[in-house]
């Protein structure tokens, strides 16, 4: 093993669990796609090393790279504005530990990306708009849409007229 490889493995082990968790949520728990995202993120990150200026935490920067990779992979199917809402499966209400992860995974791609970045990881709309290449208004409308779908999925009684 070389010094470079050793250093890379140390970095990989420190940050990959967080990247993988984010990738899983962005891909709707698609493990194969999440692994591909993580791999491509590291490839891009090491190539774009000079772009990292230490102005943000390394992990934040890596997450931004991951979101960009995800965006590029989705580009052909990217539907931030006119995605068709899908009906979320409603889990049984008496299931005490409702499956929030599953509900997030069932969100439409565009709405899920914004929801995960905003409500799970705490990014603000300005940052999300920049990461995803959309205007802030789109980010806000996708978040509202995601929250509506989640409420409907997780609180079916409340959603009923």
């Amino acid at each position, binding site marked *: 093993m070389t010094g470079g*490889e050793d*250093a890379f493995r140390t970095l990989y082990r420190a940050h990959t669990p967080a990247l*993988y968790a984010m990738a899983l949520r962005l891909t709707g728990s698609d493990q194969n796609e999440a692994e591909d995202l993580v791999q491509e993120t590291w*490839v891009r990150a090491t*190539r774009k090393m000079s772009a990292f200026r230490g102005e943000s935490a390394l992990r934040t920067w890596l997450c931004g790279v991951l979101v960009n990779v995800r965006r590029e992979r989705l580009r052909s199917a990217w539907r931030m504005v006119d995605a068709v809402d899908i009906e979320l499966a409603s889990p049984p209400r008496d299931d005490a530990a409702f499956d929030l992860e599953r509900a997030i995974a069932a969100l439409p791609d565009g709405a899920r990306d914004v929801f995960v970045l905003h409500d799970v990881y705490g990014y603000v709309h300005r940052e999300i708009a920049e990461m995803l290449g959309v205007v802030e208004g789109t980010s806000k409308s996708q978040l509202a849409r995601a929250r509506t779908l989640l409420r409907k999925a997780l609180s079916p009684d409340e959603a009923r007229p």
Partner: protein
Amino acid sequence: MSELPDDIQRALAELPREREPDPALEDRVVRAVLGRRRRWMWVGAAAAAAALLVMTHPWSPARATGQTYVLLLSPGSAYLTPPQGHLEERRAEYARWADSLARIGKLDVEGHLEPPGNVVDGLFIIRAANDSDAARIAATCPHIKYRGHIEVRRFIE
């Protein structure tokens, strides 16, 4: 904007922020990042990884004194390759130079690479007071004596 009910917000806050992927992914990623055929991409990727580690590691001495620089060694067109059978001797000379830096606290990471040909290349991450100091240190590397090329990159923390 519509908010989520408290129970969903609490559940969101408790979602795990880390998940362990399949252990096999690590080797896959290492191969993808470092195992490329073009050795100079190899050098660049390894340099980036090593530099990221140095920049972000809590014990990073670069945070305490001086700045971090990466020396990327490439042969260039004028490099004087070692005579047949003398590659190890050449490598040892570079290693002695690296050791001399380490003894005075100037070396952070030594990343020897295994090139396919009979030239010596690699990378070193050093600490230096400023750009001039880094250039001065680079100029003492045996690589210069053999007319190789050294690219000195400063990392902004």
